[in-house]
């Protein structure tokens, strides 16, 4: 009897050991996966099951070894949920470097909090997450979850790696869909055939093994442009109780228009009359559109909410009319409703808002995008309207939505169109002025800046800063001028021409330094660039310059009485594939010096071996901008 009990205990304890340890040792990971990696996906199994148009079950099993503290960010031990979703199970188990279990968190111990920090319009979006502070590295974490959703419009893409500095030993993704719903997929960045894709009826299995970690590089590609990934979609899906069609962009657009946008456009009779009265005398459709747009800007404010949250259906135009606020969908839809009143055609447009140009994929129809703008046809072109800003000039879109494919929803259906591209000539900063140098080496400057195109977007926000912050802005902008004192700042935002003008008067003590009797005067007063791109021993990515710019300066330098010019730098001209730089200083008859500088940067994707040449180009610019004039008594 005693023996039997003992046996049982032994048996039980072996079982426990089996559960409490994890067959893992960091020695078994190939060395090349450890290189540049802060974390390694050891084993990932994601299975997506869509047995009906209104049911999606996602099972996630993920084993990640975290090698150091920077690798913690690869651990995503959380799930979002809302009214349409249910987290059926969620849990983590943590193992130390020897494979011993050190922590386990079950569903009931997960934190359950609101997902919209400071949420304002919607309150149903929530997140469950686990807290874990690692003691030592490496450690291994197993994350498991099962989430059921009534929405089938969104299917998680498959990524061979989710982030920089993380490698993948093995990742398996299985998707099984009711065949009538018509599953489709698109593969990105897989020129080297890293992904093994096995397609069966209504089922696709994807496997990636031994994917090395990617290191970000200065002016390189974004992670989404490097790592192999697969996007999935259905031709028939459901979104918050509304059935949708995704055969092609045309029918998708038609569906969106009819199901999500059609019943949301009524406005009050008073607003209707106001719009009609305001636009009555405007000569052209575009003039009318501008009046409508500015009316909307004056009546509303933007409340930030992500597009996926709160559904894809905009708030009713009438509600925006009453309340004067909304998110991007609501404000765009409201503007469209007002355009309808004025009988100006306009189209609700879905887009990716990001500083890197990210397209809505033209040849893959699925719910995409994170932002909405409005398109107004003007002859052959479209005028694009950003409806979430009260300041933006009519027709101006900045660096977050320019030059990329967007989905334009017309009554005839959806169309993929490219938004406005700002070219070299438009993206201009003109800097002119007079700088007076006195005998003590102090300067007084009277400088005029004019920015257009994308550069307008990076300057015009200055108008909305208070006096103290404006001062601080210029002290940062000219951080190489020590002891800078701002005397006067005049700003002029010409919204019609989309030109932002700055007139700044300043002074600075001991700008020039004396060496004995000689005064050394840095020649570039107001546009000095010290940017030299990081050096890489082994550059892997192409060089990406996303936009062209041109900078033109002309500054008159007034020298102190009684001092002579001893040395003036020679003119410099640098021409490269990436642009051009010229600098010259000319002595005028009246004793002044005229400083001229021109810098042009040419957008493009340049092969990686050109990166070195680009560095050399930037170094020459920095050197040119640091030239000095020498004066003597």
């Amino acid at each position, binding site marked *: 009897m005693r023996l039997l009990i003992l046996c049982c205990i032994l048996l039980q304890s072996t079982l426990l050991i089996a559960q409490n340890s994890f067959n893992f040792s960091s020695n078994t990971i190939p060395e090349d996966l450890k290189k540049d990696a802060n974390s390694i996906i050891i084993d990932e199994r994601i299975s997506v099951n869509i047995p009906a148009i209104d049911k999606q079950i996602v099972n996630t099993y993920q084993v990640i070894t975290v090698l150091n503290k920077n690798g913690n960010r690869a651990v995503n031990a959380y799930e979002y949920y809302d009214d349409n979703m249910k987290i059926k199970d969620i849990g983590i188990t943590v193992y130390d470097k020897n494979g011993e279990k050190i922590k386990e968190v079950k569903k009931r111990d997960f934190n359950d*909090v609101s997902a919209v920090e400071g949420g304002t319009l919607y309150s149903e979006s929530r997140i469950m997450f686990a807290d874990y502070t690692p003691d030592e590295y490496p450690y291994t974490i197993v994350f498991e979850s099962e989430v059921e959703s009534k929405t089938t419009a969104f299917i998680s893409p498959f990524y061979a790696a989710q982030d920089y500095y993380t490698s993948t030993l093995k990742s398996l993704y299985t998707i099984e869909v009711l065949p009538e719903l018509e599953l489709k997929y698109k593969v990105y960045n897989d020129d080297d055939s890293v992904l093994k894709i096995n397609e069966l009826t209504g089922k696709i299995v994807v496997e990636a093994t031994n994917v090395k970690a990617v290191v970000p590089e200065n002016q390189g590609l974004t992670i989404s442009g490097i790592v192999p990934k697969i996007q999935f979609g259905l031709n028939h899906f459901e979104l918050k109780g509304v059935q949708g069609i995704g055969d092609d962009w045309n029918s998708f657009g038609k569906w969106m228009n009819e199901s999500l946008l059609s019943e949301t456009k009524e406005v009050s009779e008073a607003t209707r009359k106001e719009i009609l009265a305001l636009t009555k005398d405007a000569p052209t459709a575009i003039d009318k559109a501008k009046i409508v747009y500015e009316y909307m800007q004056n009546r509303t404010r933007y409340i930030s909410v992500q597009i996926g949250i709160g559904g894809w259906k905009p708030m009713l135009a009438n509600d925006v009319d009453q309340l004067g*606020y909304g998110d991007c969908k609501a404000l765009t839809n409201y503007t469209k409703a007002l355009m309808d009143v004025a009988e100006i055609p306009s189209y609700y447009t879905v887009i990716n808002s990001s500083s890197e140009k990210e397209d809505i994929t033209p040849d893959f129809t699925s719910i995409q995008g994170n932002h909405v703008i409005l398109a107004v046809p003007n002859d052959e072109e479209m005028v694009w309207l950003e409806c979430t800003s*009260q300041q933006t000039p009519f027709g101006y879109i900045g660096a977050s939505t320019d030059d990329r494919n967007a989905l334009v929803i017309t009554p005839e259906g959806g169309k993929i169109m490219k938004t406005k591209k700002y070219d070299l000539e438009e993206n201009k900063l003109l800097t002119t002025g007079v700088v007076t140098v006195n005998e003590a080496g102090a300067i007084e400057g009277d400088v005029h800046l004019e920015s257009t195109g994308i550069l307008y977007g990076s300057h015009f926000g200055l108008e909305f800063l208070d006096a103290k912050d404006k001062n601080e802005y210029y002290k940062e902008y000219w951080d190489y001028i020590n002891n800078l004192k701002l005397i006067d700042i005049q700003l002029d935002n010409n919204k019609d021409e989309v030109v932002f003008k700055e007139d700044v008067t300043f002074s600075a003590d001991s700008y020039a330094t004396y060496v*004995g009797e000689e005064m050394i005067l840095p020649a570039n007063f107001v546009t000095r660039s010290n940017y030299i791109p990081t050096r890489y021993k082994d550059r892997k990515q192409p060089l990406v310059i996303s936009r062209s710019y041109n900078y033109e300066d002309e500054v008159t330098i007034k020298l102190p009485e009684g001092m002579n010019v001893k040395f003036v730098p020679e003119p410099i001209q640098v021409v490269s594939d990436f642009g051009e730089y010229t600098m010259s200083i000319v002595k005028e008859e009246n004793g002044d010096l005229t400083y001229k500088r021109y810098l042009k940067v040419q957008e493009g994707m340049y092969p990686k071996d050109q990166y070195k040449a680009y560095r050399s180009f930037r170094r020459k610019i920095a050197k040119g901008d640091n030239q000095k004039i020498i004066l003597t008594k």
Partner: protein
Amino acid sequence: MRYTVLLLLIFSFVTSLNAQEFKLGKISKEHFDIPLSKEEKAAPAVFLNKYRRTNFEYRDDLDGWLLYTTVHEVIKINSISGFSYGTKKIQLFNEGRESEAVKKVEAYTYNIEGGEVVKIKTPKERIIKNRINENLDEVTITMPEVKQGTIIEYKYTVESSYYEIDDVIFQEDIPVKNAFAIIESPQFFDYNKFIKGYRDIISNDYVKLRQENASFELRNPFGGRTSKTLTNRIKYNDIVSEYHLQDIPALKEEPFVNNMENYRISVVYELATVEFKKGIKEKRAKSWDEVAEYLNNPARVAGQIDRASFLEGVSDTLKRKSVATLDRMNFAYNYIQDRMTWDRGINKYRSQDLKKAYYQKKGTAYEINTLLVSLLKRMGLKAAPVMASTKDNGIPIFPTVDGFDYAIAAVYYDNKWILMDASGKNLYPGLLPERVMNWEGRLLKENGESLSIPLFSSEHSDNKSSIIVSINKKGEISGKCRQKYSNNEGLSIRNILKGEDQDYQEDVLKEIINENNVYDVVFELENSSKPTMISYGFKTSNYTEIVDDKMYLSPHLFLEKPENPFKASNRELPIDFIYPRIVENTITFKLPKEYTVDSMPESIELKLSGGLGSYKIAFKQVNDQSIQVLSSFKSNSTLVKADAYNEIKNFYAQIVAKEKEKVVLKKK
């Protein structure tokens, strides 16, 4: 001494209080025409009125007091950046049986249209309650039709079963034209009041008689309830404090401030006593000694110090290694430091378990350092825990358990207390991390007393560089550099570099010195109690310029201080230098034989008044072909009053200008 500014007790004056000009829902044309100063106009928005009333009501049904705080605020929106004030958030706490709830929310938007004031009420569905976490709810009011020039108004009451009166905040991130606050507390509650911020606050204090109906259930002789109820009118006094402040400027962030909240103009209330039974005042406020006593209670961690028998084995083993106090201190420290991981969690004084922390090998700084104290004491050393508040937590304004969120350990040796914190892997006895270098801590003595311990570092942190370079005739420089960082300077470098691979370490170095061609890099990071050392060779052509027959040399190379950190033209708040420091550079140049020295900058010496700091630089010609530049910068203070700002700014400006001066070499 300078910190006492924060701790001034209120002195009372009697002033007449203006009648409230703002009635809910009654904003008129006159309110739009209230003249604004230049600063008020330039701000994103301005509080025209900020009203707050806190009072107690006896709730017969609950058989107890509830605390009501009514807020009524009127804000004029000046610009687009002020639109965020169109959304108001109210946070509500609850824990166990204590809870808060919001009552009677009303919010309005007013705009001028066609010369008339148009009022819009915020609809009910735009007032949303959101559960942030299990102890915190948030009510969000999103007011409609907010534009430039709009006036918004909201009023609400928070009902609370806590008796803690929220801080009465007068200063906001935007200007406040008028602020009124009325705090009424029944005579049964006594509060201590403390002023924060750089402004005198005068209150009008008086006593108001109140009557309340209260019913009392009669109890039967066994203490059970009877069906009999008596209703009584009770009379008591309300102690009232009225505050009226005008034209309060916005609190603007300034660089080199430890925690902006330490300086926000406000009155902090601390519950001192409560009298639930006639004549029996229960003390709630605490002296530092009482806080110490509370923490020394057997149920608290400090009380567990002498009961941590699980440390017995370790203690014996370590004790056997040495009898010397310092050795033992280091053994204990190293053991706890190695074993324990700081979980970065906020300290919960009320729910900790030393034993659990010890076996899980992780815990709060409080648990880790209390374990250390326990081990030290077991090993026969005189040791004690020191309660502290991190910079994020601010400065504890009155003695309170919650004013602290951290603890460190102290060992008494050679007539002084050595402070230590085992929560960081790169620390050592005597060195505290920046997060806890905040004002002063309270050392808990065994006899229940407590002692104030300064947490600002009195020791300098050094940053010393010595460079030997040679310059060729083309102006190219090659050199060898050796840098030594001690104390907190060494710590910050270790925190970035230790445990990282060499490539990463070199990249960081290149970034710091802004040079690319760096080789033979050696880092000495391992032994935390020794200074961090970095040595390397470098090649560059960045610091010379040849013009005609002259070569201009920037004599500080990459050690030149590039810009003045103090840019603003004036300053309101004290400057936090974090810890005293010394920067010493010695650079020896071997000149190209084709050149000779034409001129060198003048050697100078600068001093800040009151011994706050000094700067010295000397240029020496060692021989025909060699010069030496020696500079030494000393900053002796931690927290400096704003009065000294202009002098300090000017001191830095002179240094920056001086270091820009060139050495000129001339062709032979």
